[in-house]
């Protein structure tokens, strides 16, 4: 049977999330796959147009419904199941969106899920990290079952643009629950690059000492055109907002340059940066575990080094 992959698009109502382009690349690893991107939204047209441009996409389906204005897993899951009826695979990014939605889809389909796909070995054989990335397991599914998976964005390049897939309206006739209601979202808006897609990231840990102390990192990041990240200890202490947390339970990122400033390098943190091209560590403790993974290490006091760096970069 030819593979037919449904990718659930992630978006905020106007923009397609870059993680979707990475899921498309993952799907392209399944030989001969037809790749369909489904856009569930109140007004899907703008997002659908962006999805249609991704190279490798065969078709874009729009599922327009006022109930789809906010991504509520309980509302989306039955619609995804309806749209995926004759698909061999259903994928979404392993973001908080995909992690919330896909297991609900898998359960409705009665199928096991493969979380955090990092490599495609065949249409039904995949590799994924477990134990905070300390082991990689190869899993194989029953080829007859629908495969539901989430895609680890840091493992795949974004699909190029330049495609022009046809966009079709799909209608699904399923009853949607009303037991779940969106109230609000508080997203700190800033002009800095997005942590998950930035090519450079400057991250701070507990050593920054306060929200005020963190300002020197923002300042350095601005000079570098970098996004800012944080360790869990820094977030817990209130020095940085939660959406900046990098690691096993935060964001998994793969920038060209990652600078860990005053971060010890706990295993849960390292999980989030394993795929960074170059890791720089600045820490006053030369024995800190972060140096075991750093490509460039500098032992010293961050409060001296960071301002000096900023000056030298100019």
């Amino acid at each position, binding site marked *: 049977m030819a593979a037919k992959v449904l990718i659930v698009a992630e978006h*905020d109502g106007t923009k397609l999330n870059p993680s979707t382009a990475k899921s498309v690349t993952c799907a392209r690893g399944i030989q001969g796959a037809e790749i369909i991107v489904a856009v569930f939204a109140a007004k899907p047209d703008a997002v659908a147009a962006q999805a249609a441009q991704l190279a490798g996409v065969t078709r874009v389906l729009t599922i327009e419904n006022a109930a789809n204005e906010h991504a*509520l897993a*309980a509302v989306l899951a039955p619609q995804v199941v309806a749209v995926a009826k004759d698909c061999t695979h259903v994928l979404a990014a392993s*973001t*908080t*969106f995909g*992690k*919330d939605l896909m*297991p*609900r*889809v*898998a*359960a409705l389909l009665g199928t*096991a*899920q*493969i*979380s955090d796909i990092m490599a495609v070995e065949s249409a039904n054989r995949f590799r994924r*990290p*477990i*134990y905070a990335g*300390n*082991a*990689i*397991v*190869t*899993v*194989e*599914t029953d080829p007859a079952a629908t495969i539901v998976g989430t895609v680890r964005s840091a493992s795949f390049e974004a699909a190029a643009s330049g495609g022009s897939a046809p966009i079709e309206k799909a209608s699904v006739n399923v009853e949607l*629950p009303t*037991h*779940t*209601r*969106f*109230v*609000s*979202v*508080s*997203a*700190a808006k800033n002009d800095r690059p997005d942590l998950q897609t930035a090519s*450079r990231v400057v991250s701070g840990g507990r050593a920054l000492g306060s929200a005020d102390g963190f300002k020197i990192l923002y300042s350095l990041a601005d000079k*570098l055109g970098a996004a800012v990240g944080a360790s*869990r200890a820094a*977030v817990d202490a209130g020095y940085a*907002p*939660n*959406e900046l947390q990098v690691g*096993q339970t935060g964001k998994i990122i793969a920038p*060209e*340059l990652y600078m860990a400033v005053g971060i010890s390098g706990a295993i849960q943190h390292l999980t989030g940066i*394993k795929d960074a091209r*170059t*890791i*720089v560590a600045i820490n006053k403790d030369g024995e800190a575990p972060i140096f075991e*993974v750093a*490509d*460039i290490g*500098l032992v010293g006091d961050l409060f001296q*080094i960071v301002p*000096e760096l900023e000056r030298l*970069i100019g």
Partner: protein
Amino acid sequence: MKRILVGIKRVVDYNVRVRVKPDGTGVVTDGVKMSINPFDEIALEEALRIKERGGAEEVVIATIGPAECQQQLRTALAMGADRALHVQADGVVEPLVAARALLKLIEREQPFLVIVGKQAIDDDNSQTGPMLAALWNRPQVTFASKVELSDGKARVTREVDAGLETLEVDLPALVTTDLRLNEPRYVKLPDIMKAKKKPLETLPLNTLGVEAKQQLKLVKFEPPAQRQKGIRVKDAGELVEALKKKGLI
């Protein structure tokens, strides 16, 4: 009775640096410290606080796994849970199987709230909560950092990639915990003694009518790729030079 059901999974302690067995058949777990999954301690803590505020009358914990899981159930009872259910299952328990078993317990116990961890730190699946909510046909709020209960409803704040999102759901509902929801209490010695007398019921998985079917074949385990050893620079100036050489600035 107003009841909260909490899922407890026994996992390798988060401080252990897990290693893959040389023959690639799994990871080394012999002689390794085992603990309650950290997110489940948070789930239990939240349930206990709700009960202490008068929002619930009973906190029931449940695990699906082999006999040794009873150690973690006893610890959870010592933390303050009222009663434990041990669904006995040997071998791999996939999230869908765990969810099916937990659904049977929900049908029996009729909780108004079910709290599980957002992910178990062994397989990092992050699936059981939403799967269970789907099978139960009830609301889910994943990655919770704040839970407020009022008449028949819950208002829950969740940690999403964009920031913090708040949802309102009708009860009964399922919540999965994020790290910042609360800080779990420590277990005190006298409570460990008391916990020995608390009820712990064992139910074989098949008596619940759930099949322990494993859908995913675990073909092989490998250690992750190691990074190349890096260099040390002595000051900010050298660091800038090194970054320039790599074309990074």
